[in-house]
């Protein structure tokens, strides 16, 4: 049988050693009434070449980013991933390892975890980062609960310019605990400082914003931090692309108490949405309320530096129902990829990636602004995404542009039915001027009011 090495002779030997006659004897403890005695009707097993062919055929039905030039972002970014990242991260020694509970033989992953924590702190300007969470959305939700625990206040105010799915997930996590999540409507694509002042008060555990925000806008983080702190609330910054902080002031420098982010852009493939990489970083004084695994440096019996999982009394396997979270796994492999990616970029590379994203996105933004029928929906500074007002419904536009070889962006009607003519467009460093020029041409063609077939015929005639 595939992947089972035991031969019939070995099976007999083991059964004899155990003192039973057949495999069936090993299941005598299962009540007969719950035994399965009929076929399951599963699809038939596939031999290796058949399997590969079947999955290739499934994969071929998908319009992936090598087939459609990708201008979609919204929490999943098509940055260039240097091949070294996954040739290293996917080594069997990392890929097939378990959680490093036996630290002496898993120094590789533990040290990489410590390096990861350091790099995340550096990029975000924070004091401490954990060794990763499931994804950005669930990390943010856990941070909302963490804010409640730190402040003993049961309300969070979350900007309407935070990724809609992050907001949804936050509500799923907070509702059963009686934490009220108040949404601050965005004002023309940005979080309004004045509006925030109205809602952030002495009952508020945290003010949550996203930087750059869901619409690509660069928020007035420092001013919003002041609003939160004036009310004794924590300032929580979510981010869907930490590479922005190659250029933007890191959250720690503008008053963030906790950062919750998505690390997919740091060397992780699009993968149709997962696995991605949840980031949490905070101040050292809050570390004991932070969920998730942490790697710490220590010494061995001979005084040599080594690494272990630490501060585990926060975690479910020790603290059970009093743990900071139920989280047990993390996304170590994705964190490893991020560590390798950031090592390859270095301080110079993260700045360059951020600048390339910014400059190219602004080039496309200007080109689209000039197109008849199109416009830029919100005025203000943006990083690598912006919202385009489209002459026809954005979802229709995306479908038509797919035929021209482009994934034109994310129609915002997906999240808000009032935004039928709004398209969120993203440009990473992986896009070229030539691609953007062709894209602009295609937008122009597709956005032109359609001439009636009869009119065309008439003219020809």
């Amino acid at each position, binding site marked *: 049988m595939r992947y089972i090495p035991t031969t019939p002779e070995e099976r007999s030997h083991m059964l004899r050693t155990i003192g039973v006659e057949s495999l069936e004897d090993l299941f005598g403890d299962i009540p007969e009434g719950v035994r399965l005695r009929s076929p399951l009707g599963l699809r038939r097993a596939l031999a290796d070449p058949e399997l590969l062919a079947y999955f290739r055929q499934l994969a071929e039905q998908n319009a992936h980013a090598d087939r459609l030039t990708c201008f979609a972002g919204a929490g999943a970014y098509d940055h260039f991933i240097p091949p070294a990242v996954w040739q290293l991260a996917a080594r069997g020694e990392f890929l097939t390892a378990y959680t490093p509970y036996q630290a002496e033989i898993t120094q590789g992953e533990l040290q990489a975890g410590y390096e990861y924590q350091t790099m995340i702190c550096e990029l975000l300007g924070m004091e401490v980062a954990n060794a990763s969470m499931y994804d950005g959305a669930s990390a943010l939700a856990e941070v909302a609960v963490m804010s409640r625990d730190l402040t003993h206040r049961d309300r969070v105010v979350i900007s309407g310019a935070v990724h809609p799915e992050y907001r949804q997930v936050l509500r799923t996590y907070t509702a059963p605990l009686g934490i009220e999540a108040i949404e601050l409507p965005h004002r023309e694509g940005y979080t309004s400082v004045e509006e925030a002042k109205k809602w952030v008060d002495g009952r508020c555990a945290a003010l949550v914003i996203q930087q750059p925000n869901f619409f690509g806008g660069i928020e007035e983080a420092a001013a919003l931090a002041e609003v939160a702190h004036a009310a004794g609330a924590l300032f929580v910054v979510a981010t869907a692309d930490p590479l922005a902080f190659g250029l933007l002031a890191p959250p720690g420098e503008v008053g963030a108490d906790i950062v919750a982010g998505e690390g997919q852009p740091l060397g992780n493939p699009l993968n149709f949405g997962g696995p991605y990489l949840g980031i949490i970083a905070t101040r050292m004084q809050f570390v004991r309320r932070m969920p998730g695994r942490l790697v710490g440096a220590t010494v061995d019996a001979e005084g040599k530096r080594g690494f272990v999982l630490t501060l585990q009394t926060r975690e479910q396997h020790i603290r059970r129902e009093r743990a900071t979270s139920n989280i047990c796994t993390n996304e170590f492999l*994705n964190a490893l990829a991020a560590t390798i990616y950031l090592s390859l970029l270095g*301080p110079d590379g993260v700045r360059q990636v951020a600048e390339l994203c910014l400059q190219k996105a602004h080039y496309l933004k200007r080109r689209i602004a000039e197109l008849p029928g199109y416009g830029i929906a919100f005025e203000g500074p943006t990083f690598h995404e912006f919202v385009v007002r489209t002459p026809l419904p954005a979802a229709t536009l995306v479908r038509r542009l797919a035929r021209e070889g482009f994934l034109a962006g994310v129609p915002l009607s997906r999240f808000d039915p009032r935004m039928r003519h709004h398209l969120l467009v993203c440009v990473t460093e992986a896009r070229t001027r030539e691609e953007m020029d062709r894209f602009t041409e295609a937008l122009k063609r597709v956005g032109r009011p359609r001439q009636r077939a009869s009119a065309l015929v008439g003219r020809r005639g």
Partner: protein
Amino acid sequence: MRQVFPLIFERSVPGRRAHGLPPLDVPAVPLEELVPEGARRRTPPALPEVSELEVVRHYTLLSHRNFSIDQGFVPLGSCTMKYNPKLHEEVARLAGFARLHPYTPEELVQGALGLLYELAEELAKLVGMDAVTVQPAAGAHGELVGLLMIRAYFAHRGEERTKVIVPDSAHGTNPATAAMVGYRVVTVPSDARGNMDVGRLEAELGPDVAAVMLTNPNTLGLFEEQVDRIAELVHAAGAQMYLDGANLNAMLGITRPGDQGFDVMHTNLHKTFSTPHGGGGPGACAVAVKAHLEPFLPVPVVAKRGGRYVLDWDRPHSIGKVRAFYGNFANLVRAYAYVRTLGEEGLRAVAEHAVLHANYLRVRLAPYYEIPYDRICKHEFVASGVRQKRENGVTTKDIAKRLLDYGFHAPTIYFPLIVEEAIMIEPTETESLQTLDAFAEAMIAIHREAQETPEVVKTAPHTTPVRRLDEVRAARVPDLRWTPPGKSAP
């Protein structure tokens, strides 16, 4: 402290580069025009400045300082460390999956949605339930989804239930999840045979109980012999039966949770369905439910309409979203590849051999180590180091550390909490008789060492890249990040 292996930061030389980023191919606009003054970064992050070769060597050498299934036996109980097929790695990396943006229009991702749909369908048949979601990122995340659904179900019925019952042998995630969903946790002890104490359960059941979370086979590696009776009692009290399906490997094609009376369950796809553990994640998880819980599944649900797959967001009773997008997709590709490689017969053989191998090891170790619940086990069994501790002053931790010198990963230790000096061993179906024998010989040799040269065991490991590490110091003086020279630690 002596530094034997540098951090990547300690290899850094200012000015060194390892990236091949493209030059700017559009007219540059002055930064001041694009980013407001206060919003710009002033100092660069202290990331390492290294060459590409140095990065490659550093992480290759770090991989040599790691231990994994690809290198040797990892008998971690409750973790199901089976072989992770290379074919499935290749499949998961196909551009049509790996390069697919999650917000690509539905009609252009039919292959991906079809895969999710078929995986859910196969899993539902395999566990005997009516509907499956594969959105949760890991087992604990699946527990959260399951309990949120139970909570929503009772809220919909207008019933106020506040308690969740877990056995004392439960994974720590069970009580932690119940607390996250706002439930009070009640613990019920195990009986002398290692089953949940049904009498005590009965006493705790009442109109305030929302769910009983059972692990089956339980964390002692034993099948809950009265699972059908427990289900009857729980349902009579109006509560829901939740299965922690971490140990599904032992039941594939043998018995189905749906037939055992469970209403909702999760199963860790990185365990039974062989997606790689990745050093602690990413995992992946399926949550399966009976029909009455289906309206509460997280959105979106992959549905089939008129021969096409769609993402159904219009589900008014849904618990909402528990993560962004649709799940740990790349791992779901691997899990589905596993199901399709093995098929019905293969999956049944998996369970049979997982159980065969565990019982073989149990019998081989029984003369040397105490086995507190010594009966036919399922995919794993729990031994104890009490004898060695009492007679030789050698603890389970010492035995675990000594195993590392013998070239094995240690089993899960000190869990479940109800067994003193617990050593929880799960060999899986993919290990050979020769490996099982070698492991048994190592355990027996350590037993002898404990009697004859206990110091060797107590000071183990001796051959690993570092010696036993000071965990107390790590927790007392947390050092959680490297600090550039000249800067003070936070």
